[in-house]
């Protein structure tokens, strides 16, 4: 199944797992939660007992990084919880884990709000003291608690919360999801896609990027695409034109989740970037891209 493209990447992931059970960004380095998440999702359900045992070890390591407030540290070295908490919730959901510690993580995600959503900034926006087309009425998610909202952590949190919405604090989860989606929609660039943060700065429009457009579309998955008309076509164009491997990989995943019939990628693995290999494997038509989807289409 999957041919050389998929198998070469999965084999690389199997071979590059660290002794502690996690994956690093590049072989030979320490384990981090982000590449561990993508590797685990890519290898999920791919067959052998060895792989299942490897994933169990990885999950054990991930859980060891949870803090008492429910958040997750990005690695064993770092002491503070960050946006990767969303990844841990997604992993838990994929693995069918729904216990008090997962719920503590969901509580943390529901509590965290981008710092721009405060009374001062909203007042400043109302008084036109803010020189950007920035709707600060919506609540998104930051990379770290106390910082401003950005598209990528918001998208990953939307993916995670949609997975738990039917099981825990449903009304609150649905409210944050809806508002987070509204925030993503409000941050669309004039070219129809998404930048990392805001669509303009000072008086200048900012361009959208392939990877952030893909992530925004993942965050919006499940919402009527009438509300972001044209974005999928732009994403298709990005996928055809971009030289960014990371952008292409995220676009493969997002477009498939959004129901687009994207041609299967081919070619051997080009780099030793573990995160990239995982995302490329996930985005293959026979890969696990559905683990990112909100449901319905998948």
């Amino acid at each position, binding site marked *: 199944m999957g041919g050389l493209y998929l198998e070469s990447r999965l084999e690389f992931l199997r071979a590059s797992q660290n002794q502690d059970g996690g994956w690093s960004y*590049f072989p030979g380095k320490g384990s981090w939660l982000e590449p561990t998440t993508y590797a685990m999702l890519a290898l999920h359900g791919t067959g052998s007992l060895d792989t299942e045992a490897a994933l169990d070890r990885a999950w054990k390591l991930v859980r060891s990084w949870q803090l008492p407030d429910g958040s997750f540290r990005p690695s064993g070295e770092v002491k503070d919880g960050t*946006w990767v908490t969303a990844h841990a919730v997604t992993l838990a959901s994929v693995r069918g884990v729904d216990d008090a510690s997962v719920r503590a993580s969901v509580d943390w995600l529901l509590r965290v709000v981008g710092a721009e959503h405060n009374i001062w900034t909203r007042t*400043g926006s109302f008084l036109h*003291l803010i020189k*950007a087309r920035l709707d600060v009425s919506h609540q998104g998610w930051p990379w770290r608690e106390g910082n*401003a909202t950005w598209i990528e952590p918001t998208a990953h949190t939307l993916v995670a919360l949609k997975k738990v919405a039917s099981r825990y604090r449903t009304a609150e989860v649905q409210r944050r999801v809806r508002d987070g989606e509204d925030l993503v929609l409000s941050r669309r660039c004039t070219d129809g896609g998404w930048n*990392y943060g*805001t669509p303009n700065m000072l008086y200048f429009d900012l361009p959208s990027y392939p990877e952030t457009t893909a992530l925004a579309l993942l965050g919006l998955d499940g919402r009527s695409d009438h509300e972001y008309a044209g974005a999928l076509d732009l994403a298709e164009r990005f996928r055809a034109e971009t*030289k960014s491997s*990371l952008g292409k990989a995220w676009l493969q995943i997002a477009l498939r989740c959004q129901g687009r019939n994207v041609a299967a990628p081919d070619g051997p693995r080009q780099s030793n970037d573990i995160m990239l290999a995982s995302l490329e494997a996930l985005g293959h038509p026979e890969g696990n891209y559905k683990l990112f989807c909100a449901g319905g289409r998948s």
Partner: protein
Amino acid sequence: MTRRKFALLSGAAVVGAYGSIKLQKVEKPPKLADGPSGQSSVAIIRARSYSDDLVSRMLEGIRQCGLDVRGKRVLLKPNLVEFDPATVINTNASVIAAAVEVFERLGASEVKIGEGPGHRRDTLDMADDARYRATIPNFERIFTDLNRDDVSPVKGFGGEQEFYFPNTVLGADLIVSLAKMKTHHWAGATLSMKNFFGVVPGSVYGWPKNKLHYYGIPESIVALNRQFGRKAFAIVDGVVGMEGNGPIQGIPKPVGVLVMGSDLVAVDSTCCRIMGIDPEKVSYLRMAAGLGHVHPGRIEQRGETIASVETSFALIDDFKDLRLV
């Protein structure tokens, strides 16, 4: 309430993060802090194009600054931000390739390249676009994506109990800030000191390194240079700089110089004067005046004179008052 006070009350970080509220106009303190004792040498070396013999030019500048790199582990830190074929955002690949050769020739025990771009995550693809892989021998072997390097904590940085930096940065004996001569829509100018933003790991602090915006951009520039300035050297790529709405959306500005020195405050002050910017009005340089020299009388200019290479950079409206008069 002044606009600045409003911005501070509303959380300056949000402002910095989104580039939304004008807060750069700082009240000018009555007097700049004295720098360290003595003078700092800054070399201005002519390089009219990237096809010039940059190795010889750099060797000349380094000799004039008296830098000894023998036996040192050297980390070259270019400014790789974004790629747009229509402009010149990044440190030119030829400058980096020349620096690798220069520091190897001068006897460094190791020469590496490291960068952690501020908002783009596909570092190696950007390096491809910027022709780093095509131009710099063994690029992939010697390059580290500082956003995704392993990290270790440093105590007391920026008022934090612990702040994390990439092990590649912490392990270097000498960090060479291979910056680009550009205007910057928040800091006024981005030169060798601001270039240190790229050593803050995205894997911990996100893309961009939003924590720094909250701490304050000038404050962060100073804190990073307090942390690493003692083991730093600067080579600013002013062969072709960027004016106007830098650091990404500005337009190319040929100047034809490389500016070098061990005192990064003095290097940036010199670059500002070349660009027609008054360094004493640039908030991060005012704040950094205790770390190095801003006053022209304390900077020993070597190579070309400022007057002979001065090239007035266009400034966005928010920074018109930085103009050197």
